[in-house]
């Protein structure tokens, strides 16, 4: 049970980080500089909105991955200290 809890503590930040990387690196290519020759304004705006959304979600996910990852590491250190003091 304890190992499962510790595993979950680190799995969540790792999953968030992986998700953020997936969002950024699997995002569609940005519209080219001469996009007007290739797509309509509606398509362009939809693509830009999608990209903005993906990067926004990635930024929030990375923030939580870092903060929760650090909290998990800190919690483990605290527990290890308590165990050492008890023994």
């Amino acid at each position: 049970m304890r190992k499962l809890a510790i595993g979950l503590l680190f799995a969540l930040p790792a999953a968030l980080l992986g998700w953020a990387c997936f969002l950024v690196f699997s995002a569609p290519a940005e519209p080219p500089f001469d996009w007007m020759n290739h797509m309509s304004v509606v398509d362009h705006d939809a693509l830009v909105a999608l990209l903005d959304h993906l990067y926004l979600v990635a930024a929030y996910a990375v923030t939580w991955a870092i903060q929760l990852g650090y909290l998990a590491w800190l919690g483990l250190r605290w527990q290890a200290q308590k165990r050492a003091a008890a023994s």
Partner: protein
Amino acid sequence: MKKLVLSLYAAVTVAFLAWGYYQAIYIAPADDRLGGQGELYRIIFYHVPSAMVAFLFFAISLAGSIGYLSFRRTRDAWAQISDAWALAGAEVGVVFCTVVLITGPLWGRRAWGIWWTWDARLTTTLVLWLIYVSYLLLRRFAAGPQVQTLAAVLGIFGALDVPIVYMSNRWWRMQHPAPVFGGDADSGFKDPRMLHAFGWNILAWLAWGLLILVVRYHVERQSQKAAAQDVQDALNA
């Protein structure tokens, strides 16, 4: 009693974070001005508060470092407390500064088309992060009686970069956007709901930062006490 207070504070902090997130995503309107950033600007609600909290914690590290250097020969207990605050401030500050250095390029990739540029604000922030990472590496890997003193000196020099980072986009107008407060006429929030969301997120991230700062300080103090006990046991043996 301590546990109850900590649990209550943690619950309030989580509520602030949830409220800040709600404000940032659902209440603050998109930046739909001509040439505005649409939804992308919402990164600012995590990016800027993280930078503010990082600066505050580097200031705490500075105060702790000065305290350690002041008390190390006269009041050992005070010196150790100061040193624990210096380390906690530096470490949690680095965590927040890392958030800043990752969310910034994510915004920059969409807004500027590039991940990174050697703009004054970006470069000085990277230097600040590197100084405090070297501070943490010194604390982690160096040994001997002078480590705390050397770390305190490094912590003081590191903190000197904070005002340079803060003023960098005022002194050198390059690519980084103007400051949210005290910038030019085009800077700042144009809608009060944006400002409210920003304020709530500052409060939420400050509360979160203080929570992990206190936990980190506690861990360091326990570590100091265990080390002192080990020395005492060795002397008694």
